């Protein structure tokens, strides 16, 4: 959190103080805490932005002075494990598309914090649908497109939204890179270029330790990955790319998070043996090109194989401009995963995969007071998100 504190200070933003937050009690006919069985007629108390108590209404009285919200179903605020929201803007016009820089296929030094538009309407769109935490940043399409970050879907600027300023470094394997850059023109050359760049980063580190090496942002960003300070988020859809990502992780010893992974169901043994989590493509991803073999059941297949799965809204180049993980998890739930396991993919498991499980993803004392309130089964098409709470503040009260 030192990173957060320093960045917030840089942005001239005061860190949240307990006085800034109302005391809130949220009562639900069903409360999915994601830390144990759902609670019937449960209460969540929030104070100072943090969860104070969680339990059955019979055991958790609401203290005087607390504002009370009620709902049929309460869940933790949803966590979108990978998005480009805030960088790939609503309009889809050149001036609001900052998710990919096309000057160079390898640019791990680009930071999401320098490109995030907290005011983009898509951020509010996700918030209105219960999404309170988003892992966002530079998108797929470059060998190394930049660094990702974690934000809450609130605030007028990145400083107010920020949770973690540098979470992962985003890489992409596969044919999409060749369509964005002069080189690599093939998938194999892409892997060779990445290996070469990681070797250069090792050499850079050797020289730096020896002294006299001028600092280099690109090399520093790759070193963060090589020295396991942050994971490599590797977008790999086809089996060949997934296996190449696993091979790279073995060679260089970095922490790997697989992204997209449309054909992951064909190589579950390899993924599980490597103990790699998967941020799966949106369940309703278009089945064309690299994703033509996507299935609606992949989340279930991976979970059954013992692989940690989170869902993502992903990148959309056209209409709709973003997907909503609530909708994607719903379809996964209905295609074998079941309600509670599908909820995991957009709450606690998503939080774990992005390293934020100490703050978000479940309703437990001490965690952030982030909640989504529904007027029925969260996944039913005709159910609405009727309130959203971020750190104790009610940020949305319109049923959507």
């Amino acid at each position, binding site marked *: 959190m030192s990173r957060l504190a320093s960045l917030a200070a840089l942005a001239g933003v005061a860190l949240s103080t307990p006085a800034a937050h109302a005391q809130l009690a949220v009562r639900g006919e069903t409360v999915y805490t994601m830390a144990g069985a759902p609670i019937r007629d449960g209460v969540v108390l929030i104070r100072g932005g943090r969860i104070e108590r969680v339990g059955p209404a019979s055991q958790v009285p609401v203290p005087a002075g607390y504002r009370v919200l009620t709902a049929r179903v309460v869940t933790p605020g949803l966590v979108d494990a990978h998005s480009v929201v805030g960088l790939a*803007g*609503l*309009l*889809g*016009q050149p001036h609001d598309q900052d998710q990919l820089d096309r000057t160079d296929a390898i640019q791990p030094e680009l930071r999401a914090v320098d490109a995030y538009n907290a005011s983009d*309407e*898509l951020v509010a*769109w996700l918030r209105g649908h219960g999404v309170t935490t988003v892992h966002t940043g530079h998108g797929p399409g470059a060998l190394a497109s930049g660094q990702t970050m974690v934000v809450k879907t609130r605030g007028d600027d990145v400083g107010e939204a920020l949770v973690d300023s540098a979470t992962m470094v985003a890489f992409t394997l596969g044919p999409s890179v060749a369509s964005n850059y002069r080189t690599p023109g093939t998938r194999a050359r892409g892997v060779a270029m990445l290996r070469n760049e990681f070797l250069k980063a090792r050499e850079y580190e050797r020289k730096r330790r020896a002294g006299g090496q001028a600092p280099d942002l690109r090399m520093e960003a790759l070193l963060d990955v090589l020295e396991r300070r942050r994971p490599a988020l590797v977008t790999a859809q086809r089996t060949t790319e997934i296996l190449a990502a696993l091979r790279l992780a073995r060679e260089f010893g970095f922490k790997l998070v697989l992204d997209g992974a449309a054909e992951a*169901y064909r190589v579950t043994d390899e993924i599980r043996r490597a103990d790699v989590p998967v941020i799966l493509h949106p369940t*309703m991803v*278009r*089945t*064309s090109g690299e994703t*033509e*073999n*996507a*299935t*609606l*059941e*992949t989340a279930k297949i991976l979970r059954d194989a013992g692989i940690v799965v989170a869902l993502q809204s992903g990148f*959309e*180049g*056209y*209409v*709709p*401009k*973003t*997907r*909503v993980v609530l*909708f994607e998890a*719903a*379809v996964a*739930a*209905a*295609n074998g995963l079941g309600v509670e396991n599908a909820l995991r993919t957009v709450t606690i498991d998503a939080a774990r995969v992005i390293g934020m499980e100490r703050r978000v993803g479940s309703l437990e004392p001490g965690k952030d007071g982030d909640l989504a309130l529904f007027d029925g089964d969260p*996944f*039913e*098409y*005709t*159910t*609405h998100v009727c309130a959203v709470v971020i750190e104790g503040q009610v940020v949305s009260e319109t049923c959507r």
Partner: protein
Amino acid sequence: MKRTLVPLLLLAAGVAVPLAAQERAQVFRGATLIPVASAPIPNGILVVQGGKIVAVGGADTPVPADAEVHDVSGRTIMPGLVDTHSHIGGGDGGDQSAPLHPSVRILDTIDPRDDGILRARAGGVTTVNVMPGSGLLMSGQTAYLKLRDGNAIDDLLFCRDTLREICGGLKMANGTNPRGATPHPGTRGRAAAIIRDRFIKARDHRDRVRAAAGDPKKLPARDLELETLVEVLEGRRTVHFHTHRADDILTVLRLAQEFGFRVVLHHVSEGWKVADRIAAARVPASITVIDAPGGKLEAAEFSATTGMALERAGAEVGLHTDDGITDSRFFLRSAALAVRNGMSREGALRSVTLAGARILGMQDRIGSLERGKDADFVVLSGDPFSVYTHVEQTWIEGRKLFDRADPEQRKLAVGGYGVFRGGALHVHEGEEGHR
């Protein structure tokens, strides 16, 4: 559609007897029937024979003694879905050589074996308006397809003679998509002027043909483009107009009024702003329901409440997939999202069935479960608007053309394993549904 069914069945039976005499009636017993044209019937009976619906009613509906009975208790049966705007089939349309391509027919380029057709059936879709794209002011003639099995496009068309009959509508577009360098319009004003100019010429052509009164010496030369536009002027061919922004929607209404053509508004992202005007013009709308706004300037103010706004204003509202913008397998989801955003259940059910049929001018034949209509229906595992409901079977003209219980066909519903490259579609010789 005995035209297509008879030869197949005769081939199988090896004898020349009329279809109806040869085929047993099929009875579907125990499902909740949603006829759309009337109130739902719990524990109902649906009887089909000869590709048509013979009876729809409650548990006491009489059934033929020799009928084949399907127990569908606990299920829901509704009419086959009508998708008024789709791009399945791999067809194309006009090119960049001109802004208007009224003589270009998408039916000349559709692959009747395209796996998009199989995918659509897995979503319960039985009738589709397949359209060329929106990158031109007028990109060509659309094709109305029944998603039967077929080797040639003729097997799927509603029309019987592609030279003498009208087999679809005419795709037009305004707003930003059709803009471009000359000869394409650079502004909205020029776009409207190009359209008006051509329809004025079509009027003149129509008048000359009428004046000739059949005299070959007086008839003007054949002109495929103007002949198509005359069909539009005479109200025989429907214009399907891609239009998003409120002002562009009103421009379409203005053109339709000037030339008296029958038009359907498509997409209508800002329809919620001008719902009353659309309803007052008695122009139907076919709308896309997407998960988020944006992606292009004109969709920035998209609202999923447009369906509700148009319904309340009294307009005819159909939904469409615009496949691949949304996937045909999720067409019922679009209707459910319309309900989530304020449309009535009845209106939403109608929007993917009978309203679509009316939009395509085929309400006498499809769109509801009524005696005499085509036996196009979907067997659902539960409520049509629930995420947990699956399309179990899709029947077209009395033939089961999708069955989720078949492991091979199930892949069409869930995807993967090369299914959309033909990898999972084994050939089942003589088996109903897959040849």
